[in-house]
């Protein structure tokens, strides 16, 4: 199968959906001629014009609010939020408005919009351009949240997001834009709420989101060499969350580590760990363990930044201890 980059995959998804449905449009900062700073949207304005690939002023709350209103009245906006950190600017429009309008109106209004943004540290961009804030939006009922882990998922999830009748937030990992993966030429969509078992295993389950899937796949390689068979599962969407698949794996392997690049405390790893603990407690040989980013603002210095994120080494180390039963002694 041909391989394309994550960036190309997103671009293709948008192009296909904009061809298919003329109510789909893109709005955000420097999305047209510049094609975003990451160049993900390069060329779309040539095909669809500035009427459907709309450059905005630096007014995140404003254009997210406008997307909500546009979505309520018959279009399907795809909002480009240049950095995931800017979510903090648009939370009111996203969480007080977009997320609640369908419910508050008793089902008479709906907000079919997509908010594309990113996550991921280690790009030396410091505390306000490196956050992974998906846990925040996942906490708000009414939003769906997708976390593609490769070009394949990025395309398939984006196409689904655009056809959804609800507000969807998609987080791309900004360090993966140039990573290639096999992506079929034929059209495909990836349903929400269906986890992907990336690698089967017997001894331990590694549940990983976004770029942490790569991290866990590397860890699994190392563990395999040591005779530990790790299953790697990518939930693909955290809202809705395919709890069933995760629980089944936990019951099978009896040991679980959840790995995510958001801050660990009050984050995604806690939710997934809790759901598994609640449902598979008596099948577990050890507590479900979490590995998130450190609970510190992301530091600029490379010497510090690299310490804050989960790495294959940290996963391997934790898996070894779990499989050796060491957590028993710790408890």
């Amino acid at each position, binding site marked *: 199968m041909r391989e394309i980059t994550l960036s190309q995959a997103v671009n293709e998804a948008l192009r296909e959906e904009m061809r298919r449905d003329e109510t789909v449009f893109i709005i955000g900062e420097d999305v047209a001629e510049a094609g975003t700073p990451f160049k993900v949207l390069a060329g779309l304005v040539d095909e669809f014009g500035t009427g459907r690939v709309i450059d905005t002023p630096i007014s995140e709350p404003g254009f997210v609010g406008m997307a909500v209103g546009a979505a309520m009245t018959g279009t399907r906006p795809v909002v480009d939020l240049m950095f995931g950190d800017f979510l903090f600017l648009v939370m009111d429009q996203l969480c007080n408005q977009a997320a609640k309008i369908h419910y508050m*109106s008793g089902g008479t*209004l709906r907000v079919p919009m997509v908010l594309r943004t990113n996550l991921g540290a280690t790009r030396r961009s410091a505390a306000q351009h490196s956050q992974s804030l998906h846990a925040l939006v996942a906490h708000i009922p009414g939003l769906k949240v997708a976390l593609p882990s490769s070009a394949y998922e990025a395309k398939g999830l984006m196409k689904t997001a655009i*056809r959804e*009748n609800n507000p969807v937030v998609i987080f791309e990992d900004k360090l993966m834009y140039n990573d290639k993966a096999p992506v079929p030429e034929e059209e495909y969509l990836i349903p929400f709420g269906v986890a992907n078992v990336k690698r089967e295993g017997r001894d331990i389950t590694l549940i990983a989101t976004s770029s942490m899937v790569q991290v866990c796949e590397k860890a699994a390689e190392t563990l395999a060499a040591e005779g530990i068979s790790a299953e790697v599962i990518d939930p693909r969407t955290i809202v809705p969350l395919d709890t069933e698949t995760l629980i089944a794996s936990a019951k099978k392997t009896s040991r679980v580590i959840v790995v995510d690049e958001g801050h660990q405390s009050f984050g995604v790893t806690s939710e997934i760990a809790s759901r598994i603990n609640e449902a598979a407690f008596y099948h577990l040989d050890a507590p479900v363990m979490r590995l998130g980013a450190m609970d510190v603002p992301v530091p600029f210095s490379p010497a510090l930044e690299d310490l804050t994120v989960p790495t294959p080494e940290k996963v391997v180390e934790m898996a070894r201890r779990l499989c050796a039963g060491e957590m028993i002694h710790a408890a």
Partner: protein
Amino acid sequence: MCATKTSRAAKAAPKGNSEDYLRMYRQMVRIRTFEDNANQLYLSAKMPGLTHMYSGEEAVAVGICEALTTEDKITSTHRGHGHCVAKGAEFKEMFCELLGKAEGYCRGKGGSMHIADTSNGNLGANAIVGGSMGIATGAALTSKMLGKQDVAVCFFGDGATAQGLWYEVMNMAALWKLPVIYACENNGYSEYTKTDEIAAGSIRGRAEAFGIEAHQVDGQDVLAVNTLTEGLVERARKGEGPFFIELMTYRYHGHHVGDINREYYRSKAEEKDWKDNRDPIIRFRGWLVSQGLATEAEIEALNAEIEADAKAAVEYALAAAYPDGAEVDLHVYAPTDPSVFRPGA
């Protein structure tokens, strides 16, 4: 019993016949009557929560909404009953909503502060001050993008002009010439604070700085409001928007129904002056009679009819059923027809 709104096709000529004038009067009285009944429901502890009365500001909502077609959109505020009635809503569904009943416009899920009436283009009240400024502007973007003729009117208060969102969306509306009208209901107060204390400079000047044509109008004069709006709506349809209107008005009640002792922030004399000398309904009624468009008797009959309607609607709503508990987790997500997710769909 509802005031039927004209569709765009039927609505070309400016106001000028008695039917139009009487409908405006009727709508203002309907709003006042709705509010009086809502207030009674609160005072008699029959309404859950609090609500914000529109009484005194009727000419604003009616003057503007009478210039709109059903397809035109509005966004409303926490003080939104007036906009809802003026845009064509029915008493029954409104009272049901205020009481949290299943037959309410939002199946009881929204209540007073989130009442929406999509059949008439009311995109909903909003409990975040200024929270609908983006929504209205986005509705105008849809209109332009899909080549429709719809205009969007964004209602908000003087207090809402302090929200940064307004400046962001005005900028984009002006850059892209969107068919949106920002209607600022300046009732002199933002909760318990006078507008002067929280608004520096000139509110109209703020819109003008973005190159937006700005108007001020007596919000107690329904004809003045309507005439101005008719003109701006027509121009907005032609791509000459956006526009800004500052409507000088007054709220008769407290900030919300529970705000009874308010002398620490405004005097009884001031309230009395507005009620006695500038009431939009009294003024318009006098004009209708003086112009021979209606007799006092006809007006009294109309008032009584509306009063009776309201009473019936209140009684209906009080007796109506609450939504079933099973609805609590319905409408969190809109359903999507699974077939659209098939490749090639």
